[in-house]
């Protein structure tokens, strides 16, 4: 081993307790960072999946103007054949066609304005968790049945239940009057009051008949195998689409979700930043003390012909070795801790009940990855090196004779 490296290594252990305390601070922060980042991003994954599985999907094919001007006339022509083509082309059954209209839902006693989705009974359960959230009754079995499922708040407001009739009034695609009487076959409870109050679903065939859609719809919803696969799939879908249609990603469809995650990341990383800076100050303190107490020795090696810059590099090397220990031990501890929760899951009081409302598992299983394991400790390592610059820089002004006079 190189003598300068050996010297740096042994210098670390002159005050083993102090060195271990500093490394301990790094290990603690690195462990915390690895676990928290893994947990945090797993939660984002759940948040995204949870939100996107309700309606949005990972992406949607729409008419170009539909996103900003959600009108009946912004249609996807031949929406079901298009969805079928996409399923075949991409060998996926998590693609479903939809239509959307605003209508007035009237029971014998009350009327409410609601959003009505026309959905494919066979494929909708694969892109949305609403069919799985039906608390009472069932989902559709046929594409042309005169049936509807409604949210539980809407059912309560209309004072109807499964088996009751509901009158739908609205405006068709051609501007004509649309009306139908449908039977409530299911009541769902998503846990999101706005959805449970304002949304109803009917079979797409029935929807197209009632609203004179002439085979058109408004969305083709696509779920990728995982969120990470979505961007590549989106590119392929975009290339496949005929002119006059666009495909929007989930963050365009749900800008609020993305902003909420970004805000959470900002606040979390602000806290992580404070943690890293505290560790950096601990390193600065250790290395400054280490340099000050070795002033005499540094004077001697300068007298022997070592340049101040090289002495500074020695201090940086010592810090790098210490940082590397903190990096390896902290990343390993963080990865092990996270892996334990990957296997056993993490839950806290009330979490299971809340998650059940969203048709999601009650335990979070944070995923370990190389990036999540390395990112936090790498930042700590970088700040550790930055913290050593000042003690190393001080050596530039050292004079051998004055240094050797110190004890």
């Amino acid at each position, binding site marked *: 081993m190189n003598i300068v490296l050996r*010297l740096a290594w*042994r210098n670390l252990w002159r005050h083993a307790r102090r060195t271990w305390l500093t490394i301990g601070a790094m290990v603690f922060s690195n462990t915390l960072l690895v676990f928290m980042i893994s947990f945090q991003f797993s939660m984002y994954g759940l948040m995204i999946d949870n939100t996107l599985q309700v309606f949005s999907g990972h992406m949607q094919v729409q008419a170009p103007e539909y996103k900003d001007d959600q009108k009946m006339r912004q249609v996807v022509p031949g929406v079901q054949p298009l969805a079928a083509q996409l399923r075949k082309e991409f060998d996926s059954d998590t693609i479903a066609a939809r239509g959307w209209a605003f209508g007035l839902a009237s029971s014998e006693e009350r009327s409410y304005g609601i959003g009505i989705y026309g959905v494919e009974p066979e494929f909708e359960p694969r892109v949305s968790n609403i069919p799985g959230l039906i608390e009472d009754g069932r989902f559709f079995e046929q594409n042309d049945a005169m049936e509807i499922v409604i949210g539980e708040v809407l059912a309560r407001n209309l004072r109807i239940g499964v088996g009751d009739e509901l009158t739908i009034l609205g405006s068709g695609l051609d501007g004509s009057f649309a009306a139908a009487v449908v039977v409530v076959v299911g009541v769902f409870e998503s846990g999101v009051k706005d959805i449970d109050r304002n949304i109803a679903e009917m079979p797409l065939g029935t929807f197209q008949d009632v609203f004179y859609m002439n085979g058109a719809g408004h969305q083709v919803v696509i779920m990728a195998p995982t969120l990470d696969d979505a961007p590549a799939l989106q590119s392929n879908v975009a290339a496949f689409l005929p002119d006059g249609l666009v495909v929007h990603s989930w963050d365009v469809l749900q800008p609020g979700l993305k902003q909420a995650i970004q805000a959470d990341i900002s606040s979390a990383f602000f806290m992580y930043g404070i943690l890293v800076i505290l560790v950096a100050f601990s390193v600065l303190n250790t290395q400054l003390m280490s340099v000050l107490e070795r002033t005499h*020795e540094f004077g*001697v090696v300068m*007298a*022997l012909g070592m340049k101040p*810059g090289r002495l500074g590099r020695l201090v940086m090397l010592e810090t790098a070795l210490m940082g590397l220990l903190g990096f390896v031990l902290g990343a390993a501890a963080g990865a092990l801790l996270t892996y334990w929760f990957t296997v056993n899951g993490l839950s806290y009081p009330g979490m299971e009940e809340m998650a059940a409302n969203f048709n999601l598992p009650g335990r979070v299983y944070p995923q370990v990855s190389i990036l999540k394991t390395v990112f936090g400790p790498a930042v700590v390592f970088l700040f550790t090196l930055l913290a050593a610059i000042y003690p190393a820089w001080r050596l530039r002004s050292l004079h*051998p*004779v004055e240094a050797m006079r110190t004890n």
Partner: protein
Amino acid sequence: MTAVRCVDICKTYRQGDQDIRALDHLSVEIEKGEFVCLMSPSGGGKTTLLNAIGGLDIPDSGEVWVADKRIDQMSKGELADLRLANIGFVFQAYNLIPVLTAQENVEFVMQVQGIPTAKRREKSLAILEEVGLEGLENRRPAEMSGGQQQRVAVARAIVSRPALVLADEPTANLDSKTSDELMGLFKELNEHHNTTFVIATHDQRVMRYAKRIIRMRDGRIVDDIEQNAA
């Protein structure tokens, strides 16, 4: 050929309210291969002169030439290079690096010089044998006596065969037997390798080995004599 030339150098230190003139218009020339003792009472200026010759301290005025290079105007980096290539230092307090073994202490300077590992090992073991420390290569300074540590310091100073060795009270912490052995070693290097020695001391025993004795007082040379060395 001149190894060291000081021309009218002055150095003043501030100590509390007082200015202490450590070197007072001092001029001296030392030829290559000389074995010189600087003698003075404490505070006479011999250590300051050694430091000026070694480029560890810059005089307030005057010129210092070492190996035909004017060093009092050199940068820190240039002075470090000069010391690394031309000058070996032996200090009163040994000043070994405590976390390195005897061999590593000797190798350290060679590593800084960029000498390859195998050659470093070979030279360090040879020089440690030469100073009588065979078998103690792996001991750290704390595991050696004062005499042994001083021999390691000497080995470190001479391993690269510098043209000039500056020693500041090298025998101050040694018993008389070890002192004689050390001076014998210096003498041998001086005679066999033509190494120039400048030794600051007030040890009368050391004087016996010197061919030239420069006596100083209050920063000036008061006597400069040549003698038959032991």
